[in-house]
Every structure is written in C-alpha cells, then in structure tokens.
C-alpha cells in the first residue's frame, strides 16, 4: 500500500488484507500503521497492489479514503478474523483492530507483475 503525505513524501507498507465490501468499496484494517494512517488522513488517495495467490494474478487499485468504522458488520467480520489469527500466533493485544477504513475504488487494473518487480 502506497500513501503520500500532504507535503508529497510517499510511504510504502505491507498489509495483510483487503476486504471486499461491495462493488465500489474495499476495507483496510487500521491496526498500527501510524504513518500510513496519518498520510491518508492528510491526503485521502492511496494505491494498493493485491496478490491473488489462487488466481495467480496481481491487481493495482487506486483508492479514495471515505470513512473509518469502529462498529458494524464489516468491522465485526474483520475483527473476528484478526482476533482468531492473533490468538493462535501469540499476538493477542498487538493485533487489534482499531478501525475498518472504508475506501472507494477509483480504478482496478490487472498487472502482470507488481510495479516494483
């Protein structure tokens, strides 16, 4: 996931999940990416590259941050999954969903290789 601060400094990070919300929206988990979150709050645009292992494909998504949810079905489903993984791997208390950030999908593009390879 690539974000950019208001003064133009980019930041790249690795995220575990891109949740499908509906045809025009995805959700990303807000756990502990402080720089990413700060950037998105300053500049709502983001770029995400998704690996689909089963489909052997990669997708590039242009996103626009819309809102942050701390309750509701999307938050609950994401929260349960994170808690299930955290409890098995000794990460309880560290892996904790603080919010589900909802993004509008501006574009989706299939790419042969991720841009950095």
């Amino acid at each position: 996931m690539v974000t950019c601060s208001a003064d133009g400094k980019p930041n790249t990070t690795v995220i575990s999940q891109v949740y499908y919300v509906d045809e025009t929206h995805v959700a990303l988990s807000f756990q502990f990416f402080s720089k990413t979150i700060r950037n998105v709050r300053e500049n709502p645009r983001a770029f995400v590259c998704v690996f689909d292992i089963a489909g052997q494909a990669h997708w590039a998504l242009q996103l626009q941050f819309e809102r942050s949810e701390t309750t509701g079905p999307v938050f609950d489903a994401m929260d349960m999954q994170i808690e299930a993984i955290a409890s098995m791997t000794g990460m309880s208390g560290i892996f904790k969903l603080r919010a589900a950030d909802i993004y509008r999908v501006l574009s989706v593009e299939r790419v042969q290789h991720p841009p950095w390879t």
Partner: protein
Amino acid sequence: MDVSPNITELERKIAEVRILQRVSADINSTLDLDEICDIALRTMDELFAFHHANILILEPDNTTLRVIASRGYENQAVGGRVAVGTGVIGVVAQKRRMMHVSNLGQQRAYAAAQRREMEKSGRQAQLGDTIPVPGLPNAESQIAIPLIIRDDLIGVFSIESPVPRSFGDHDRDLVTIVANQIASAIHNARLYEERRVAAAALQEANASLEARVAERTAALERELRVAQALLKEARSRVEGPLLGDSAVASGLRETVARQARAVAPLLLTGPAGSGKEAVARAVHDASGRSGAFIFVSCAELNTHESLFANRFELASGGTVFLDGVHDLPPEVQRVLHVTLEEGQRRFLRGESSVPDVRVLASTTHDLREPPPGGFLPLFQLLAANRVMVAPLIDRREDIPALVDHFVRQHARRLGKVIDRVSPDSMRRLEAYTWPGNIRELKTVLERAVLVCKSTVLEVEGEQLNEALAVGSYRLVSPLGSGGMGEIWLATHRFLVRPAAVKLIRHDVAPGAAREQLVRRFEREAHVTAGLRSPHTVQLYDFGVNDTGSFYYVMEYLDGLDLHRLVTRFGPQAAERVITLMRQACRSLAEAHERGLVHRDIKPANLFVTRLGTEFDYLKVLDFGVVKEQQSSQDATMLSNQGMVQGTPAFMPPEIVMGEARIDGRADLYSLACAAYWALTAHTIFDATTPAQMLLQHVQARPIPPSKRSELSIPRQLETILMTCLEKDPANRPASALQLDQQLAQVRCEAAWTNERAREWWETHAPELLAGSS
C-alpha cells in the same frame, strides 16, 4: 441460447435439496450422539466432496471445546481441545457468530512476519506463545458455525480446506442449515440422556427409600413390641401393692387420688420393697398427664449426669420418678434443687401453667430424724410433701388380697391353673415377718407357683426366708426360668459378691436311679469347674439342696444373651457377630480338648456382657452340666419340658439322628445356627412344629443368610457359616480353633472395636451397664 449450464445448476440444486431433506430425516431419527455426528460428517462429504470437518462440544466448564467427531485428518482429531477465544473455532464460540475465512494461510504468514519483526526489534516480551488448534495445519479456507440452542452455545461445527477461497456464500448457507440440524439433534440427544439418567436415579432412589421405609417399619415394630412388653410389665407392678382393706391400703389409695392432680414434687418414704414405685406409678396414671412415666434409678446415675438430664427430657409432659433419691450425687442434687425451686417460683408467679415434669421421688432413708448437719436443701424441699409407704408388716391384713393377686399373676404368666392357696400356707404367709416387704412376698409366691404341681398352692416354711438358700448362697430374686429350672440372683452369705444360681428340677424318685443321676451331675460339674477359658461362665459351686433340686452357682453377669439381644434390637452387624463367635470358639476349643461337648449351643446360652473396660465380652453359659441327662430324655419328655421351644432350631443333624459318637463339630453347627440368627433374626429353617424343624436339620439345605438380611454379610463369612452347617461333620471345620482362625480372616466393611461396642451399650442398654464391672 445455451441452457446447459442452467440445467446443470438446477440438477445440482435438486441434489442438494435431496441431501438436505435426507440429513434432516436421518439426523432426527436418532438420539445417539455418535450417529448424529456421523450423519452430519457424511453429509459434508456428499455436499462438498471433501474430507475435513470437526464437531466440537462446549465442555461443562464453559471455557473449552472438545472435538467429539472429525473426518479427514491424518491423526484422529477426536478428543482434541481448544480454548474458547483461541483460533477460528475458539473465537466463533466466544463471539457466537459464524466465521468464513478464505485466506487463512496468508493471514498466518503475515502474523508470523510481524512476529519476527517484533522479535528483531527486541519486543519479545509483548509476545505470547503460539497455540496449536485442532484442524488442518495448512488450512486456507474455513467456515466455523456456532451450535446454539435457545441462546445457549453447545459447540462449534467447522469445515476446512487447504485451498484458498474454497467456499462461496452458497456453501456457507448449506453448512449453516446442516449445523442447525446438528445443534437441534445434539440438544435432543442430551435431553434424552439427562432424562434417562434422572429416571434411573429416581428409580434407584425409590428402591432405596422403600428399603429404608421397610427397615424403619421393622425397627419401629420391634420398638413397639418392646414398649408394649415394658408397659405390660409396668402395669403389673402398679396393681398389687395398693390392694387390701387395711387402713394403710385405704390411706395409700386416698393419697394417690389426692396427689394425682397436684404439681409439687412428692417424696415417698418407706422400707425397700414396700411398693413406693407402685404408688408413684398409680399417681402418674391417675394424673391424666399425657407424657411418659420415666423411672430413674438414682444409684445407677453416679457417672451419668447428662443421662439424668435426658431422662427429664423424656418425661416432658409426664412424670419422672427418682428411685432412691438419696443416692443422687451431691452435685446433681444441687442442680435438681435449683431447677425445682425455680419451677415452683415461676408457677406461683403464674408464669407457667403447670410445671412440665412432675417429680416424684422415693427414699428408704428415715426422714423423721434429720442426719447430723441437717438435710440437704433438696431433701428439705422434697420433704415438704411426703407420704410414708408402710412396711408389709404394718398391713398384715392385706396379705390374703396381695397373695391372691400375685398367685393369679404368676399362674397366668407361667400358664398354670391354681385355684387357691392351702390354709396352712396362707397362715404361714400371714405369720411371716416379711423383712423384704411386698417384693419378697411376690418373689416367694413366684417361686412357689413355679414349682407347684397341683391346683392348690403350697408354700412350705423353708421357702420363706431361710429356705431361700442353696449352699452358702442366699437367693435374692428370680432372674428367669426355663424348661429345666430357674435362675436366681443370689449373694454369698459371707462374701458380698453376687452370683447366679441355677436350680434344676427333676422327677426322679429317691433310689438307685437318682443316685446315678447325682453322680453324673457331680462328674459333669467337676469337668465344667475345670474349664478356665475366660469366655466360659465360671462355676463357683454346685450341689443338691434340701428339696432335692440340683443347683449350681455361677458368676453373675450383667448384660443380655444373644437371643434377647436380637429379639430386642434386631439383626446385628457381621463384624459384631464375628467378634462374638470368635469368643465362643475359644470357650468351645478348651471344652472340646477336654472331651466335653456343650450340645446345647444356642443364642440363649451365649451371654454378652461387659467385663471391666471390655464391652461385648461373650460368655458361654450352661456348659455340660446334666447335658447327658437331657439328651437321654425321650422326645415326649423334650416336648413336655419345653425343650423344643428353642433348642431344635439349633440342633445338629447328628444329635437329631441320635448318633452315638458326638464330637465338638456338633457345637460348631449349633454355633453357626446361632450366628445365622444373630445376622438375620431368623432361625436357619422356618418350621411350625419341632418335628419339622428337626427333619430339616437332617435333610434341607439352609438359605444363605445374605438372602435373609438387609444388612451386608461378607461372602467369606457366609461361606464359613454354610460350611459349619454341612450335614456331615467331616465337611465342617475340624475344630473350634480352626473356625476361629477362619473367622479372623473375614474382611468386613468396618471393624467392631471395643469403642464401637461401648457406644452401642451406652446408646441401647445403659441400664445393663451401670452395675457391671
């Protein structure tokens, strides 16, 4: 238009519906948990053609889930556990919400990467342990559904696949339908099991309750019989002493009428045997008080102050009679004095209507002259309302009425017909001084009735006072009587020690036959006197008295024989019976070694007593003496003498058959019969006539005692008893010592200790302990 994909889809859906219909029918047709799980897992196979599914049940602690059925795992997952809140299944149970994950491996890898990063940056302390959970280690897709019935979580149903995104929304819906069926079926199966267990418990409780009710009923019936006997005996004691036309007798009757409604304590004075207890009972009977008349022998209460208080409680609403109140320990006298005084004060102040317990007391002390230092306060209080019960000598004109009453009473009890007392006898009775008062009169008449052979009662001069002696012993009061004679409490003329004297009647006229009989009696008495076992009753003396009766003098024992013990208190615990039997064995072993066979071992001849600090000390009575004479009697004689009333029930087959050679094993048979009686309160055979009983000893096999008692009888003990009851002596234990050793090996639920024996006596028969030592 290409419709084939739609047709295929339609066929698939129809197949799914059929599978779901079948699973619904199958799963609801059973209440067996294993079968329910099997149907559910088989359905998963049919719907998805894969093999990874788990059914977990929430444990009663509500913190753990346990796999009860699984399919498709290399290592059988059944029995595996996961904590609520851990992993996909644990979180589903915690949140009670379904979870559908499609990229579990990816998420795990991400978490592992994060973990490594933290470890590298030195933040290990924040990390917990990784926890394995049941299921595929490389699962990518998983649907886990909580099994919920009426808001209660009962478990989790989970399916897994190693392939990412294996399950779509449609699959999730199908699994949800099956999970709901599973939850419902498991719930039904559990309810059914709970009810089955509850019904079984109820049935068991019912059976136990019925048994307890039956046991309690039997105990109550026994208590009732004992109470009735005591009541009857008490009534008979009331009647006599108030009879007669003398001024003394009229005065006593008036006193009774006057005192009956009074509430103040009443003190009865007068010499021993004058009838003070009878007057007290008459006062109680006429009082209309609903409670009991409780007799307290103060001389026996020296070390039992608490018992004294208990007796007062028993007398609530009735009367307590303190016999020999002068014997009360000073401390108890003080307590009683305070209690009586307080009761009187409250009564005078009108604080209570009537004192709850009427106190009557008796003393043989002469209160006309105070002792040096004056009366104790209790006596001052009691003496305020006192009545003198005069000695018999002062109411001599009542003697005919009293004689008539006691003769009728004894004749009725002994089953004799006596029309009158001869004039000479009556003159003797009226002329006699009666130092023992009415009690002595009653005793003399009892003995006279016992030996009387016609309808006219004769009382010879020697039967009065001086005649009531055998050898160096003076007879005090009768203790009992049987077919062959009577037993008296006696005291040595010079030594104070009490003794029991047995007088044996016979109908053999003077002459050679009688001489022979005397010699045999003497020979057997010599042998018996030589027995040294502490479990054999000691013989002090023997002889023939002036009236021609044989007598022998034995140590006097407090306690009761096994016959009375079981009659009064019912079947006894196996460990106690073993303890008693072993003591009898030791007595018999010595006798058998000397060639003496008892021949009449029966519960009435096994006397349970206290010897010093030892409780349940058993003494074998009636050893050998005149036994040969008895056994040579013909059957008619046996019947006439009442022998068949008890003894046939304990008679070994070889004696029944009249075998010439009888040895100690005959006693072992009888001892086993007695033990059988003690364990079950039944004789080994049920028979309505002596002949039937004797026949069964020869022919029938007894029912094992465990089948006739509600108490537990160790199998080992039963085997030993049944061996002793073998018809052929050769099949019984070879000796009493061998039997003793076998009994020592029997393991019981609890040991019969001296402490338990002491508790038993103190609880059940404290009155029998007081005087013994």
